[in-house]
Structures are given as structure tokens and as C-alpha cells.
């Protein structure tokens, strides 16, 4: 009876904490923050036409989720940010569920969820209409299913079910950003290794084949399904309008729709291949992410008394209640306690991986570095907030280490310091106006 109550209370508490910290001032500023200028109008276009208009560089999945918020609450900052808020809350709960696959009880899993809820990258990406929070949601779901499979490795039915869940989650992740494919490789290897432990024979071969097929065909099918609205509404896409106006090719045959979709995919691929590092002051190479010394300033506005006189239909309210001299900024930078404790936990975990040869530990490490390593060898421009999908894995690293003898005393210290750091950094994560001195006090080590 007690167990059942706790099973509900801890996730409910985590959702409450996450929503209660992220919901206030969600509509501030009433202007587009960073890449919201792409995704919010794209989502509105999808409601209007079924497809995005203009240059598109990511698949439609995340934008459909943003569109759902706009459908529910209108094309307002709250509407276009609502889906991110919900996705952030679910990611926190999924982290808790994932942690329950690797440690006993509910306290440490609860701490894992809390670490994600109070991390700066998760917090800021969970309050803007961008894609990273949705990628984090689906990759965390895939990690959860994989950890559950590893835990129930002797139960074939449970493993198959988890494999299906991971495949669907990764497919959904691919519909948000292609970088979900990086995790797919790690998940595929984990399930193949699980199959490999079975006795050799024809059944083993079939299992490996089934694993490879389900973790490639299913995600691909989900990805293809996300483009059904595109194919149906191909006549309203920029690709078609362009072909029709420039080349006089106005055919809407199925073959032409598919051809235009392939061209659209090639355009996305070309962007990913050719977009280099030197275009944006916020860009940060992956190898510099480790100390968070180049965070992304998503929004910055020096406040003036004059802004108080803006009429309602022009006011962004970024500086509400703040006069000349203050500055409002939203900086995507990690909670230093979570970040550096996780890096230390990663080193400990690497030691365990070598000493214990445990597939669960190896998978945890892969889940925490996959995004990092691939970006490190990729010359495409990147930003430190790309670590958003890694934060849940970092939280899992932490609680795995906290569960070991010799480290258990660290958990309450970590929890206390994490909350204290959250309170201190909250203004630059939530965009609350600060004096220049207050803002400087929150500048991050070597940053700026």
C-alpha cells in the first residue's frame, strides 16, 4: 500500500516542482527567443497549411508538438512554449523511471529527476519553443526502455517490449532532429549484446536479426509517417511553389510529391553538411562544452524606463518592473553542481565499467556522451545547449555512483548544493532583470 502511494507521490512531486519553477513568467518575453523565430512561425504554418514554409532544416516532429500548444492556447508566447514545458516535465519523470531501473528505492531516482528539473540547460530549453527539449524527451524515453530491457534481461517478452518502445521513441526522436540517430547506434548495440548472451544457434541469429530490423525499420517507419502531412500538402510547400513558379512544374502527382520530398531532405542534409562554425557568436565547438565556458545567450535586453510606456500590443514585457540600468537575459548554461558532479561521476563510472564489465554501466556511459562525441568530430556549427539530451543521462550517472558504498553520503550534499545553485542562477535562466553587478556575479567561470 505504502509502495503504491510512493509510486504516485514521487513522480507527482517531480512534476509539481518542475512546473512550479518553469511556469512563472513563461510568457516573458513576449518576443521570439533565439530560434523561436523559426520554429513558432513554422508551427503556425503547419496549422495553417499542414507544412512549414520557407527554409526548413529539421524534420517536422518537434514543430508539430509546438503546433499542438499553439492550437490549444493560440499564437502567443505561452502557446508556442507550452509544449516545451510539458515535454520538460515528462523528461524529468522519465529520468526518475530510468533511475528506478538501476538503483533501489525512490529517493535516489527522485534525486535524478530533481537534478534534471533544476539544471540550467534543461530549465531554459524547457521554456522555449525550440527542438532540443523534445529530442531530450524521446532520447530519455529510449534510454529508459533500454535500461529496463537490461534489467529484465532474463525475460524475453519484457526485452522485446522494451525494444519496441525504444524503437518507437528513437523514431519519434528522429522526427525532431537527426541527431537522435547517434543514440540509436548505442541502443542497437545494447540490444544486440543482450541477444549475444543467449546460447549460440539458429534462434540467436534470428533474435539478432529481429533486433537489427526492429531498431532500424521501425524508427525509419515512424520518421516516414511524420512526413505524411508533407506529402499530402505538398502543393503548399515552398519546394512546390518554387518548382511551379520557376520551372513551370506544377504537377501534384504522387511521384512528383515524393521527388520534392527527397529534394527537401537533400536540402536538410546540405544544411547539416555545410553549416560551419564561424557564423554566430553563440556557437561553441563541442570540445569546449566541458567547462561551459561559452554558454548561449538566448535573449538579452538592457532595460530602460521608456519601455514602460509601450502600448500593450507592442510591449515585450521583458523588463517588467525593472528600470534603466538593469539587464534582462536568458542564458543557457548548466547548473554547475549538476554539471561538474556529473563529470566526476562519469570518471568513477568509467572505472566501474572497466572493473565490472557490466553492460548497464557501459550503456549509461554511452547514453551520456554520444551527443558529445559525435559533435566533437563534426565540423558543423554547434551550441552548448545541444547537451540538453545528455542531462538526464548525467543524472543517471550521478545516482548510480551515489548508490555505491563510499558515495552514499554525497547524495544529500549534492541535493542541497543543487537547490542552492538553482536559486542563485534562476534569474539568468528565467530571464529576470538584474543589476549589472548581480548579472556579473552569475557569470560562469571563464565565460564571457
Amino acid at each position: 500500500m505504502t509502495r503504491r502511494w510512493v509510486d504516485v507521490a514521487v513522480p507527482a512531486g517531480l512534476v509539481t516542482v518542475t512546473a512550479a519553477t518553469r511556469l512563472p513568467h513563461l510568457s516573458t518575453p513576449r518576443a521570439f527567443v533565439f530560434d523561436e523565430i523559426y520554429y513558432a512561425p513554422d508551427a503556425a504554418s503547419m496549422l495553417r497549411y499542414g507544412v512549414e514554409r520557407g527554409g526548413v532544416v529539421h524534420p517536422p516532429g518537434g514543430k508539430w508538438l509546438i503546433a499542438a500548444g499553439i492550437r490549444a492556447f493560440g499564437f502567443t508566447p505561452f502557446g508556442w512554449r507550452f509544449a516545451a514545458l510539458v515535454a520538460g516535465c515528462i523528461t524529468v519523470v522519465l529520468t526518475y523511471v530510468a533511475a528506478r531501473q538501476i538503483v533501489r528505492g525512490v529517493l535516489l531516482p527522485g534525486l535524478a529527476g530533481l537534478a534534471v528539473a533544476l539544471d540550467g540547460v534543461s530549465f531554459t530549453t524547457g521554456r522555449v519553443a525550440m527542438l532540443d527539449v523534445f529530442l531530450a524527451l524521446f532520447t530519455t524515453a529510449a534510454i529508459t526502455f533500454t535500461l529496463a530491457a537490461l534489467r529484465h534481461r532474463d525475460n524475453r517478452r519484457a526485452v522485446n517490449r522494451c525494444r519496441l518502445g525504444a524503437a518507437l521513441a528513437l523514431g519519434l526522436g528522429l522526427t525532431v532532429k537527426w541527431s537522435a540517430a547517434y543514440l540509436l547506434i548505442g541502443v542497437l548495440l545494447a540490444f544486440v549484446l543482450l541477444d549475444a548472451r543467449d546460447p549460440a544457434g539458429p534462434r540467436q541469429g534470428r533474435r539478432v536479426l529481429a533486433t537489427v530490423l526492429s531498431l532500424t525499420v521501425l524508427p525509419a517507419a515512424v520518421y516516414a509517417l511524420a512526413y505524411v502531412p508533407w506529402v499530402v500538402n505538398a502543393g503548399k510547400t515552398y519546394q512546390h511553389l518554387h518548382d511551379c513558379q520557376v520551372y513551370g512544374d506544377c504537377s501534384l502527382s504522387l511521384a512528383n510529391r515524393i521527388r520534392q520530398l527527397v529534394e527537401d531532405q537533400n536540402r536538410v542534409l546540405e544544411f547539416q553538411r555545410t553549416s560551419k562554425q564561424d557564423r554566430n557568436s553563440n556557437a561553441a565547438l563541442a570540445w569546449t562544452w566541458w567547462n561551459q565556458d561559452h554558454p548561449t545567450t538566448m535573449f538579452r535586453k538592457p532595460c530602460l524606463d521608456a519601455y514602460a510606456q509601450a502600448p500593450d500590443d507592442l510591449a515585450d514585457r521583458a523588463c517588467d518592473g525593472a528600470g534603466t540600468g538593469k539587464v534582462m537575459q536568458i542564458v543557457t548554461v548548466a547548473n554547475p553542481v549538476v554539471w561538474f558532479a556529473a563529470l566526476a561521476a562519469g570518471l568513477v563510472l568509467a572505472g566501474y565499467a572497466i572493473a565490472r564489465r557490466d553492460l548497464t554501466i557501459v550503456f549509461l556511459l554511452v547514453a551520456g556522451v554520444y551527443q558529445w562525441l559525435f559533435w566533437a568530430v563534426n565540423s558543423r556549427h554547434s551550441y552548448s545547449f545541444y547537451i540538453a539530451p545528455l542531462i538526464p543521462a548525467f543524472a543517471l550517472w550521478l545516482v548510480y555512483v551515489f548508490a555505491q558504498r563510499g558515495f552514499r553520503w554525497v547524495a544529500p550534499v549534492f541535493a542541497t548544493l543543487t537547490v542552492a545553485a538553482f536559486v542563485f542562477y534562476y534569474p539568468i535562466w528565467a530571464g529576470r532583470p538584474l543589476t549589472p553587478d548581480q548579472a556579473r556575479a552569475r557569470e560562469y567561470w571563464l565565460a564571457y
Partner: protein
Amino acid sequence: MSTMGRLALADDRGGTLLPRPQRHRQRAAVPLRAVLSRVVVAVVAVAALAACGRPSDLDHQEQVAFARGCTSLIERNMANADPPVRELGGETLDLRDPAGFYAVLERLRGPKTFDFNDPADADRSPKDKLDDPCRPRTPPKSTESTSTTATTTTTAPPGP
């Protein structure tokens, strides 16, 4: 036994780590089937919600949102200028006179200013459509700073 086999068979050893459950003897820490089915239901529900039309006053909401976004961009552009004077659309914007500043912006703003759904304009990104009309210029014969601020984003998407 192969290396892969040894790797996969290794057990957890930490005191508070979970032992592997025995087959059919211990219930899962979470009901996986229920979680999976709820995830699928949630995704379908979201897709259905998004697919069932659009807000009735989407056009008006877009115009208001872009007008606020445009004003915010101009304010951020001029906040550190000395003097805070710029030109936009043939009119002078002076932040030292807030009432006049916002009156000019109200005048400049109109339904056509933020028409983001013109098919002839479909090749331009929303960022370009916002940046271009919302980038005030330094008045001629002025010696003040000429820096301008565009919306802060990752980068502009490519053309077709």
C-alpha cells in the same frame, strides 16, 4: 564464453543497486506495457489536436506577436545607442521621447507589415521577414554608433 557474453552477463554489485529480477517472480519497477501504451496514446492525441484545425484568430495573433517581436528587436537595437535615435521607414525613432517613439511604431505597423503568409515571399525565412522591416538605420550625418542588432538565432536556413 565470448567477451560480449561476459559483458552482458555481468551483475550489478553495488549495495543499493537493483539485482536482476528473476523471471516472472518480481514485478517490474514500472509497468512497461502501460508506459508504452500511454506514450503512444499521448503522441496520437497531440497529433490529433494539432491536426484538427487552427485557432480562429491565428492571423491576428500572428500580427500582434510579430509586432511585439519587431518592437523588441528595435528596442534592443537602440538601448545602448547614444543618442538613442534611429530611422525606420522614413520616420525618426527617438527613445528619449517614449510616447513619440511608440506612436511612430504604431503608425509604421500595419496588417501588411507582418504578412507572413504571402506565397510570393515563401522563400524567405521568418527571421528574415522579421529582421528586414525591424532593423532601424542610423540617421544620416550622425556620428553615433552604427551597430545594429538582428534577432539572435543559430543561423539562417539555406535557400532551396
